[in-house]
């Protein structure tokens, strides 16, 4: 079929409703009633002192995406953040505003794949990458000192197409389609102002699978997050996660720094290594999650005890190096990924989207990762292939917009 013929048919199909008597230019609105059973437990408040999606207990699915701006205007950037704020507020509330409105000749105002669905604890979290402060928007002097370019770590195999970006967005929900819908609406709203640089998708065990509420297991089969920061502990969150005006950047008060690393796991290699090797690599027992030499997951890491003074947990075990002396803490919110196969090897392209939040990466993520990159036994089985850092803005009130403390 010729292209022209196809176009003709499509045009005819588009016009068909009007032949049937609908006036061109009429506004058609479909409003979908929201099921009355919808409980508040299905929504995470969007507005507040902090952005949602940080202290929020991890949802089951996530999209992490980065955008590059295609404009040099600060007004455009402000406009984009305002648009995004409204979309995020609407979608996370899952409200009565779910509607198709506008002319039948226009594309629907909402793409529609979640009409009538629950918001499933949807959260949308926005952040600014270091490149936002490169001078295009006159923001250079406002770059937070803590928003460093991450240094190269030993063994990095970073791919530019999976790294960095002017703006970062973390979208989480207990349903993949709901999360994807939010990403899609953000991309649409950014048209002409910003383009997607990358988008990566992750998952965690759902409450249905993990009925016993164990610490979630990653794709190496180990519990991951046993010693994580308790995000319901407000005072700990203030110490570890939330930036403060006294840190030197007023506009980041109540915000947090997100470090993202895409960690490819060579799971084929991992799967043919012995249980003994796997447990010594991690430093915990696979089944129980207990530290080597202990029986319960909650037992403290026996870092320096053992027969003849030799450590029970090897010197190069992952938990030992990640823990260090315990002075660096981060809030981890990781998701696993499985992205088809690596075309070069036919092996599964799977691993971990490591996401963590902190008050200052220079004092938290970076020293931890430097230790791990240098000596971690796990390095034999993984490679860091993507990387990004974002200054996640403070929250906002109704009527305000995310990013206002920087852009107003």
């Amino acid at each position, binding site marked *: 079929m010729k292209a022209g013929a196809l176009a003709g048919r499509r045009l005819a199909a588009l016009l068909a409703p009007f032949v049937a008597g609908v006036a061109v230019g009429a506004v058609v609105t479909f409003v979908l009633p929201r099921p009355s059973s919808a409980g508040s437990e299905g929504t995470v408040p969007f507005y507040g002192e902090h952005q949602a999606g940080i202290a929020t207990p991890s949802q089951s699915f996530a999209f992490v995406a980065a955008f590059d701006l295609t404009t040099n205007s600060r007004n455009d950037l402000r406009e984009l953040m305002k648009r995004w704020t409204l979309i995020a507020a609407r979608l996370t509330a899952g409200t009565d505003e779910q509607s198709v409105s506008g002319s039948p000749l226009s594309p629907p105002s909402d793409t529609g794949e979640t009409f009538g669905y629950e918001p499933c604890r949807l959260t949308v979290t926005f952040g600014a990458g270091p490149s936002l402060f490169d001078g295009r928007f006159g923001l250079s002097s406002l770059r937070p000192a803590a928003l460093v370019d991450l240094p190269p770590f030993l*063994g990095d195999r970073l791919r530019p197409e999976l790294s960095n970006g002017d703006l970062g967005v973390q979208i989480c929900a207990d349903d993949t389609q709901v999360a994807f819908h939010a990403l899609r609406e953000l991309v649409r709203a950014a048209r002409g102002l910003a383009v997607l640089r990358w988008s990566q998708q992750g998952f965690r065990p759902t409450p249905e699978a993990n009925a016993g509420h164990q610490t979630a297991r990653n794709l190496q089969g180990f519990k991951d997050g046993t010693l994580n920061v308790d995000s319901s502990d407000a005072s700990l969150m203030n110490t570890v996660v939330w930036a403060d005006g006294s840190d030197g950047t007023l506009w980041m008060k109540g915000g947090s720094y997100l470090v993202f690393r895409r960690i490819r796991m*060579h799971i084929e*290699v991992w799967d*043919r290594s*012995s249980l003994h090797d796997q447990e010594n690599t991690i430093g915990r027992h696979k089944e129980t999650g207990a530290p080597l030499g202990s029986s319960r997951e909650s037992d403290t890491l026996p870092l320096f005890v053992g027969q003849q003074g030799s450590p029970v947990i090897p010197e190069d075990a992952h938990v030992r190096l990640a823990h260090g002396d315990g002075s660096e803490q981060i809030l981890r919110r990781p998701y696993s990924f499985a992205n088809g196969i690596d075309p*070069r*090897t*036919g092996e599964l392209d799977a691993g971990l989207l490591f996401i963590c939040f902190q008050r200052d990466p220079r004092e938290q993520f970076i020293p931890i990762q430097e230790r791990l990159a240098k000596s971690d036994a796990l390095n034999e089985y993984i490679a860091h292939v993507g990387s990004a850092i974002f200054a996640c803005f403070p929250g906002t009130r109704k009527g305000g917009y995310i990013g206002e403390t920087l852009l107003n």
Partner: protein
Amino acid sequence: MRMVCKISLATSAALIALGLSAFAEKVGSMKSDAGITEAYRAYAIHECNALVISTRALARALTAGNLDQAKRLYLSTRMAYERIEPIAEALGSLDPDIDGRDGDVPAAQWRGFHRIERILWTGKESETLQTYTTRLLDDVTLLRAKLDNVEITIPALALGAVDLLNEVATSKITGEEERYSHTDLYDFAANVEGARKIFDLLEPRVKAKDPALAAATEANFQKVSQALDRYKKGSDYALYMSLSTADTKTLAQAVDALADPLSKVAALMGAAK
């Protein structure tokens, strides 16, 4: 047996000069632990001697300004090393010193094969070529010296064979190892040869305990060799850049199919790192 072991420990280097392979085979067939580990030591020493000699030749070619010859020698020198890589990995910092890639070690400490590779193939920092070649010669000479006394165990050998294939699967087949010369398939072949040598030494034991596993491993070694032979011409292998993703995928999947039974061989030999 104990006597054989002592003799080989004390005189392995000299025996190599006398043509050791026949001796090693004989010791291997005796099936004692020491017989097997000393046969492997002899093999490692043989390869390491070749490594030292070849590195010296590389240094001479550079002194003479013969870059084409130096590039050829780079390949054969690499292969000698890659056959016995697990034993160097067991010796602390020697592997990163000899075989570290850019970004694997702190920039100030980066030396060894891949530093030389970058200079030879890109011309970058060519004034440092002699320095790094001399340094490599020191490092491989040190490796050779350590081989006489390094502890070798059956489980470690069996795991070493799996590690060689894991290396192939994670870095050689993705073209990350020889990123300037694109000669990854030479390393690939050498890693497989090194793993094959270990399996040959262990095979009588594997056969006795689990004949089906021995047969499966053997069959998959042959499949890998056949897959690799498609890219071999004389003693040369195709450059990585000339391979399609379909080519690398076929090779990688053959390696995975071999590494899995080989890891079971390691378990059978009591291996647990």
